[in-house]
């Protein structure tokens, strides 16, 4: 019973790492918006790097999520 509780707490703690991913993804899109507002002509050129940055920073959050799921379900 106590191991079960410890598992739950551990999974919750592991999911804290998602905060960093949230901040990262927010920063990527916020800066994309700022850049497009400054120079709308660059919108198409900036879209690919923005998606790339979004995907790469999102992956770090998902690693934390997967660790939490592994703790919870194994």
């Amino acid at each position, binding site marked *: 019973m106590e191991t079960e509780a410890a598992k739950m707490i551990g999974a919750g703690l592991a999911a804290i790492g998602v905060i960093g991913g949230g901040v990262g993804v927010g920063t990527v899109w916020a800066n994309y918006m700022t850049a497009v507002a400054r120079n709308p002509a660059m919108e198409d050129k900036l879209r690919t790097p923005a998606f790339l940055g979004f995907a790469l920073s999102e992956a770090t959050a998902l690693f934390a999520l997967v660790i939490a*799921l592994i703790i919870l379900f194994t």
Partner: protein
Amino acid sequence: MAAESHGPMHQFELQRWIPLDVGGLDISYTNSALFMTLAVLATFSLFWVATRHRTMVPSRWQSVAELMYEFVGGMVKDNVGHAGMAYFPFIFTLFMFILFGNVLGLLPYSFTFTSHIVVNAVLALFIFVAVTIIGFSRHGLHYFSLFCPPGTPLPVAFVLVPIEIMSYFIRPVSLSLRLFANMLAGHVLLKVLAGFVISLGLGFGIVPFAAVFGVTLLEIMVAVIQAYVFALLSCIYLNDAINLH
């Protein structure tokens, strides 16, 4: 919690519909295999219908097909260059397969095969091995310079080279895990919210129902974006192998 027949994890369970066993190897036709077949059939029939009567001024279906072709074609050309157009059919197939897998998985009572890491791992490992082979066959041993960009000072190289090697070998892991975790998290969230609708009943159930509606829209967006990101990252990796910096 996962063992309950209608828990949020129930949707990811494999069901053997046509059990097949070849020499101890389980190759049963499962619901996952069925949805892979459906994704291929959907892609095939979409392009068959779209290109059946080709005209100079495209019909509605033909313009859908042209839009997708130009979207992926532009992505390959922008990120890999003209040398990469030889691999365009592969990237396009990959994109359509994952896109239809993700979108078909959003239908109620359907199965999302991209939410199983084994499917994504095979796709990602195939890309990883293919990119490595292409890199070595085009550049020979010079391909190792990918790990040490030209003009790196020697003290920095001691730190940079291990990081670059690690980031190269983590690629298949992060590529497959990204798609897997996005699909898994999205579908679990949908089912958990749907459970709240049942437990709150007709009155207050409208609140989680609105949330389910919003999350479904978000999930449609995520399904398309993740297919795009998977194809985009394949292009970036291919660019490393073909153009080497």
